[in-house]
């Protein structure tokens, strides 16, 4: 045999200096993908893992089977929530640059996913999020001041200064403590859902993971467990095209899509436009209903784009064209929803500008309030005593001794 082997290493189409090119991303027309009944046989909808469910068309109209899951007021509320998330990100990014905290991560461009999903679940349901789903909290009216206090590790910080900024936790708001270790939450969500099923409860779980993190093994563990026990869980993959500097082709390999990963498990697997608030809501609803009706898990790949840097420690100019974000063919979720509301006459450009100012002011006021409790390097923060608490339910003797040694 003469043929020599060689290693294939996937590469993105374009690198810095090149012209952004998304012509390879096949985008079906809005409204073109059918909406199957929730109790469909998964084998019959395998094609949904290779398409993109979209509701908003270019003209800003909601079209097709998946349209109509929300009223105009609900849509307007959704728009404002997304604007609030974006204003929050902008403020906190700035606060980090000003040295008020150590670190920050935005969800710029991905706001629709968490915000609309939150509206498809109920109080009592539980999300197992990653660090880009702050929208789940904001859409559920979790106090911005508390979020900011966590970011500042100040003395109001609900997590007592222990966690890296944005790794929120709120059981009351159905938001599981975020881990810095990727993918671990995916199978925990399945376990939570199994528990709900074991207790003959009605609550469902939602798991969240990034495109890059689907490569982690706990993604597999989650799919195995979810498929075996038909757990009432929605498995969300947020494909924002990038994992720090690594494009999604490295995690995805030869498969067409991330949604396709679910097919080998017999799990209904859908792909949807993550920048389309209406599509996100409708598809989420479908999956949540399946879970609630004891029909088992659903895998959803949300197609979106990470418009900002990975985190404040990252500069994407080193690995992707600067203007790639503008070239992203699915547009911006806020602009798209705004256009839709303007098109249907439920909103105007003027009111939008005004709302922007109001929301900015609201976020700024929250920030001012949060800062009265201190920022990372300014003001008495959480106590050193707190550093020794909650390792165990009760302080064991060796930690008591250590606390004493530390002088507290």
């Amino acid at each position, binding site marked *: 045999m003469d043929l020599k082997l060689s290693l294939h290493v996937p590469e993105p189409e374009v690198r810095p200096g090149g012209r952004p090119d998304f012509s390879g991303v096949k985008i079906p027309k809005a409204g073109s993908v059918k909406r199957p009944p929730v109790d469909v046989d998964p084998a019959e909808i395998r094609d949904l893992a290779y398409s993109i469910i979209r509701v908003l068309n270019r003209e800003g109209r909601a079209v097709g089977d998946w349209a109509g899951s929300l009223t105009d007021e609900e849509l307007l509320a959704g728009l404002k929530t997304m604007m609030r998330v974006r204003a929050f990100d902008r403020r906190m990014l700035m606060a980090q640059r000003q040295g008020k905290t150590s670190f920050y991560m935005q969800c710029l461009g991905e706001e629709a996913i968490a915000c609309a999903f939150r509206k498809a679940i109920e109080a009592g349901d539980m999300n*197992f999020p990653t660090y880009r789903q702050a929208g789940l909290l904001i859409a559920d009216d979790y106090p911005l001041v508390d979020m900011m206090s966590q970011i500042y590790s100040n003395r109001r910080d609900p997590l007592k200064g222990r966690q890296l900024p944005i790794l929120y936790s709120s059981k009351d708001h159905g938001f599981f403590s975020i881990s810095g270790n990727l993918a*671990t939450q995916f199978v925990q969500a399945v376990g939570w859902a199994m*528990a709900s099923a074991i207790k003959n409860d009605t609550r469902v779980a939602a798991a969240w993971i990034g495109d890059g993190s689907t490569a982690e093994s706990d993604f597999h563990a989650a799919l*195995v467990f979810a498929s075996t026990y038909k757990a009432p869980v929605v498995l969300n993959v947020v494909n924002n095209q990038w994992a720090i500097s690594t494009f999604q082709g490295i995690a995805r390999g030869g498969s067409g899509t991330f949604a396709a990963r679910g097919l080998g498990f017999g799990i209904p697997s859908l792909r949807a436009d993550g920048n389309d608030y209406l599509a996100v809501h409708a598809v989420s609803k479908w999956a949540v209903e399946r879970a609630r009706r004891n029909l088992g898990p659903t895998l959803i790949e949300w197609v979106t784009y990470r418009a900002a840097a990975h985190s404040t420690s990252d500069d994407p100019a080193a690995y992707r064209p600067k203007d790639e974000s503008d070239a992203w063919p699915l547009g911006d979720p806020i602009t798209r929803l705004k256009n839709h509301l303007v098109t249907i006459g439920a909103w105007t450009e003027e009111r939008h500008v005004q709302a922007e100012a109001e929301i900015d002011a609201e976020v700024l006021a929250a920030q001012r309030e949060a800062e009265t409790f201190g920022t990372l390097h300014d003001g008495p923060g959480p106590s050193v005593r707190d550093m020794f608490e909650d*390792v165990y339910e009760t302080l*064991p003797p060796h930690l008591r001794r250590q606390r004493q040694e530390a002088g507290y």
Partner: protein
Amino acid sequence: MPRMTMIEAIRDAHAVMMEANPDVVVFGEDVGYFGGVFRCTAGLQERFGKSRCFDAPINESGIVGAAIGMAAYGLRPVVEIQFADYVYPAYDQIVSEAARLRYRSAGDFTAPLVVRMPTGGGIFGGQTHSQSPEALFTHVSGLKTVVPSNPYDAKGMLIAAIEDNDPVIFLEPKRLYNGPFDGHHERPVTPWAKHPLGEVPEGRYTVALGKGEVRRAGSAVTVLAYGTMVHVALAAAEDTGIDAEVIDLRTLVPLDVELIEASVKKTGRCVVVHEATITSGFGAELVATVEERCFYHLEAPIGRVGGWDTPYPHAQEWNYFPGPARVGEALKRAMEG
């Protein structure tokens, strides 16, 4: 009082707790229909139903990860890792998740789960059925790590572990399952039925986590041991005629430092013993603790006996296992020092 093997005691602890608390669920590889390769969960599925006790896919990370999710929901999962040697795929879930959930969420979420696993050698199980990984857990803040040495403790400690609101690593010395084993592998095995600690009360009782127990009072030297090595240490004391005080630590974290300190201050000599490889084993922590607290009372270097720093071999098992001869040598050295 009923007589039980350690397997029966563990099974009984499960049953008592599943009866008492509908939130206790049990799963793991082969634990459901079959009842576990060591039979520690036999009969539970039949008695409590398939959603309380069931077979899991072979994915240890999934088993512990799912258990964490269940615990966060409010259940009390008790999971079995088929052999401690197979816990490593679950190590991230244990270390990064279960151990830190309470801390990182400031008590918003907790992970009250028990991870049971047969541990230790002496069964010709080779490299992957013989390991003693306790030191890999004792280094991790947020975990409790326990090792019972007899049926009475196994039941009482398992109940205590299930009732505990923190994650507990529950290591079961498999060589003790059917009878006390003192390392004299050339002799016939005594069954638990003939041992006082094979008497196990019915129903619920607990053996507190964090408390050790003196198994043999003595004045010459203190031996710190746990699991199978408790029995080996007792045999070594007997074989050498040295009046050793043998302490069964039972819980490694949190450690019963008072008990240790009092004993070593009394005897002035100390030997620590475990099956795990010596370097960075839990014995090192014990030596460091004793050195710090009893420095001025020590009359000889603290002896340390453990498995050699090699993978666990198959055929050379009895040269690897720290049996009564090696422990006896250490006792003698401690008395000479």
